């Protein structure tokens, strides 16, 4: 029988520690599949973040290391500059990338460091139980914005992809989403393109993936795609911003 689909060999046998319905799992799976398609699963190194994906290195078959919360772009800079031939992904949450680590994120992008950032934008701090992030939507309820996020108080939404796309150095900046099969395919293409650029030409690429957090959104997973389509993507439109 012809095999049309199989579990990526770059995924470990271990199941992930993500909550049911969380789109982190989808993102990890896509990275694994792309690494296989590019034939780089033995070369690729992935940086695990401080966040829900802290155990990322357990789920995948790549070498992995981490950084303190927010610092992957600095740690990744040191790694990639010392080892330019090794493909490197920085897998980061929106809190990691756009809040505590925004300085490192932006400076690395502006220097055009030769790695790929995959940013999982679930609009909350997932791991610590759903506090507001710089990506939390105006009016959105979180454990630290219990009556809804007031932008005058917590600041408006930070659209990191748009900021990074304003720099000269980045080769490819895109925002994709993981809420429908069509979007997932587009996200996979984006991840592949980012890695191809990294490997073939060198340079910085940033792929933001709109994602869900049913646990902390306190939403049934099956309702999350509709909410994302109707509410979240209005604030965070998908598409290529650069390259």
């Amino acid at each position, binding site marked *: 029988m012809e095999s049309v689909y199989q579990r990526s060999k770059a995924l470990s046998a271990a199941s992930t520690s993500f909550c049911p319905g969380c789109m982190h799992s989808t993102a990890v799976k896509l990275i694994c599949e792309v690494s296989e398609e590019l034939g780089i699963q033995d070369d690729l*190194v992935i940086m695990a973040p401080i966040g829900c994906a802290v155990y990322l290195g357990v789920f995948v078959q790549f070498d992995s*290391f981490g950084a303190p919360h927010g610092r992957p772009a600095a740690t990744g*800079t040191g*790694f990639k500059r010392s*080892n330019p031939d*090794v493909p490197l992904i920085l897998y980061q949450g929106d809190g990691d990338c756009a809040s505590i680590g925004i300085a490192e994120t932006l400076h690395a992008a502006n220097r055009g460091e030769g790695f790929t950032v995959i940013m999982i934008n679930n609009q909350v701090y997932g791991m610590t139980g759903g506090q507001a992030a710089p990506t939390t939507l105006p009016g959105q309820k979180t454990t630290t914005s219990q009556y809804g996020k007031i932008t005058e108080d917590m600041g408006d939404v930070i659209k990191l992809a748009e900021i990074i796309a304003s720099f000269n150095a980045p080769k490819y900046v895109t925002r994709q989403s993981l809420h429908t099969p069509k979007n997932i395919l587009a996200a996979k293409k984006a991840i592949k393109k980012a890695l191809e650029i990294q490997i073939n030409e060198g340079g910085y690429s940033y792929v933001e993936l709109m994602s869900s957090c049913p646990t902390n959104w306190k939403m049934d997973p099956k309702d999350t795609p509709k909410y994302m389509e109707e509410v979240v993507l209005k604030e965070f439109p998908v598409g290529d911003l650069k390259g």
Partner: protein
Amino acid sequence: MSEKVVKKGNEALCEAALRAGCRFFAGYPITPQTTATEYLSWRMKEVGGVFVQAESELAAINMIAGSAHAGCRSMTATSGPGLSLMTETLSVMAGTRLPTVIVDIQRAGAGIGGIQGAQGDFYMVTKTLGHGGLQGLVYAPDTIQESVDIIYEAWDIAEKYRTPVFIMTDGTMGQMMEAVEIPDFKDAPDLSDQPYVAGKRKDGRAKRLITDSPWFGSKGNANDNMEYFYAEYEKMYESWEENEVRYEEYMIDEAEYLIIAWGTSARVAKTSVKHLRNQGIKVGLLRPITLAPFPKKQIAAIDKNKIKAVLTVEMTIPSQFHHEVTRYLDKDIKVDTYRRGGGNMVLDEEIEEAVKKLM
């Protein structure tokens, strides 16, 4: 071939780092470290290494961690406020067991303080690296030559124990010029087989899962693994006390009085010892070269039947080093301290007066 040159302390130290095989430096300018960053900004490129002017010390310390994960000999240098910013990653490095070199060119005071040399980072660097209670090896040279010799060995030691190594100098030592012998270039070892190095998988080796905390092991759960491994680290720290303690005894023959001091304070105290000896006063100097491990046994072994009194000297107020010395010193030995704060230098004549007061 080694060469004899006259160089500023910071520059000699950096040149020796390159000779030792360091090929990655990240730093953020801060007085009195700036000349180190400036020197390496051009010199690192000449030797084919990577220099990054980081956006902050937070970034700098994480960059050198990343470089170490690539198997490269990496270092940073900073001072006071910059060191405070680095502490989270110092704890991460101690937990990951990552060999890197950090040079602390001390300046005065807490907060922004002052830019003159001082010794106020003693507790911060020697007691624990950041949060969590893990440690690194800490060296404190008192001459530019010694700082050159120590940094030339620093990565060998860091890699042997898989630990961050600190070199503590200060603004005075960093800025002064001295004739030094700079050693020849040596090659860094291939570290790709080290468990903390990612990438370059050869011969189908298994993936490496590198974490800052030893969650994984044979003990069933993360807490028990961490407990087990930290106890193992403790054994390593204890072994340093046996095997890695370094100190200098200066003019201690028949000494009746002993000065105990480190770094620049010890350097100044050497002048005092010479003066006092010329006056017929039998005084010597004990100078810890390693601050961690601390020469506890050597201090505890100071014989109350021979030494009538001890004077500690340091460039910081409140006292730090003084308390560390008195922890181990025989309680029957009279002890006093002479110190200056605020970035003021200790003075040889004031050290001499302080010794005489003990007589």
